[in-house]
């Protein structure tokens, strides 16, 4: 196995209200690998992704990305987040801005300082954004306001924003769970195709086993803040899924 691009080692996190989201979770993602995480709502999947790009700071354990342990100063975090694109369940686009501007926001991590004139992006950034929009098939809609788009289109733009970062790793937090099943399958299929085409790695929380089986190289089952299983999609038997989702899991 090649050296891991991302290593999560024994991280634990509890929220201020006392909820223990993560209780010593470890996993690794190799370059170019697509890994999906499955588990019940509240198992800690979202917190896990947020610990990787530092939106949440784990109380113990380490995250290693591209051979470097993640530190918590602003500069290191900025460089880390630049290299890790994120796609969100509710897309998190800015509805009042155009599709193009939303994608250009993926370039913010590269702008030298906060004294940059606002809403001005370099020609190079615009090229990168246009090419990201083309990859997700949204180039023709570049001038529309994000709020005018359908859910599936919004998530395509969300993907384009992440791609515009020119990341090494993509995190996707239930990227298609707010879309209808058919659109979900199309959007996720397209996403995975792009990730493979670019040779990127991806770590996705998925809300259905079916999608995880279909679109990942490897699956990780999370239960009560721990990784309780990992294996190939073919190995995810009913018995395994019961150990992840509980005995009520009905295949």
């Amino acid at each position: 196995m090649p050296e891991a691009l991302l290593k999560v080692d024994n991280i634990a996190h509890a929220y201020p209200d006392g909820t223990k989201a993560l209780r010593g979770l470890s996993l690794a993602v190799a370059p170019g690998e697509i890994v999906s995480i499955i588990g019940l709502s509240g198992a800690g999947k979202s917190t896990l992704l947020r610990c990787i790009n530092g939106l949440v700071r784990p109380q113990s354990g380490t995250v290693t990305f591209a051979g470097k342990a993640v530190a918590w100063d602003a500069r290191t975090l900025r460089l880390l987040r630049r290299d890790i694109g994120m796609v969100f369940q509710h897309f998190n686009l800015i509805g009042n801005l155009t599709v193009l501007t939303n994608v250009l926001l993926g370039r913010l991590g590269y702008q030298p300082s906060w004294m940059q004139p606002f809403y001005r992006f370099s020609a190079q950034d615009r090229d990168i954004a246009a090419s990201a929009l083309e990859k997700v098939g949204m180039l023709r809609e570049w001038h529309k306001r994000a709020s005018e788009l359908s859910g599936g289109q919004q998530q395509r733009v969300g993907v384009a924003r992440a791609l515009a970062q020119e990341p090494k790793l993509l995190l996707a937090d239930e990227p298609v769970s707010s879309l209808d099943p058919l659109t979900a399958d199309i959007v996720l299929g397209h996403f995975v195709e792009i990730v493979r085409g670019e040779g990127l790695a991806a770590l996705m929380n998925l809300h259905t086993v079916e999608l995880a089986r279909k679109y990942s190289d490897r699956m990780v089952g999370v239960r009560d803040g721990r990784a309780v299983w990992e294996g190939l999609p073919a190995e995810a038997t009913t018995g395994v899924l019961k150990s992840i989702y509980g005995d009520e899991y009905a295949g």
Partner: protein
Amino acid sequence: MPVERAQVMLPPRPQSPGARIARIAWWMALVMLVAYIALALVQTEFNPLKLIAGGSSAREILSQIIHPDWSILGKLLKLMNETVEIALIGTLIAIIISFPLSFLAAKNLMLGTPLGRAVYALVRLIFNVLRAFEPVLLAVLFVLMVGIGPFPGVLALGLHSVGMLGKLFSEAIEGINQGPVEAIQACGGNRFQVIWYGILPQIAPAFLAFSIYRWDINIRMSIVLGIVGAGGIGYMLLQYMNLLQYSKVATAFILILIVVTALDYASAALRTRLGQR
């Protein structure tokens, strides 16, 4: 065939131990309120008959009022324009001051650290104090400080509006969707970029709508401010009244009515458009 329905008895309402006392307190409060209303009617010398009696003595005034003096229209238009300008500059000053402050008075941005909480409390206090000063009182103060004219009106409206706009702006910031903020952070955006790209576009329509509405309110307020000497058409209105020139008062009234109504409609239409975006 009638449907047989089982009779369902409502379970007894749970009685808390204080319920009896609370009921008595409610009744006492109601009695006191009624008593106070009665007292107020007496002390305000409320008497509709007086209004009817006064009508006949006002006949002379009324006969003048139904004949507005249109020769002063040009002069009044100029003063009306001054009133609108006082409101405009007062509102602009308030926007410039309250815009940056409103971020410091937004819970979701400030409550993270002890210093943030202190700044939040201080700025909120400033807003509340400024709101508590009625523009008319402020105008009296500023007329004493800088003299009669439009400038004290600008200062009074500006200061009071900082409190009003600051409160509305900061509440708009508190109501934003946190998702885009998280997305900007995840892209590597710093604090300023989070505010400029994640928050500002979300609140811009609300900020604009509040600002237009404030200007609208300030136009009406600045007419009143004129009466205490702070410029505009209100000042002239007072003069005509003191000189018993009621046909000129009538012209001013009509003009104010038309302009204020027109601007009210324009502002409402603009704000509706902003709301629909």
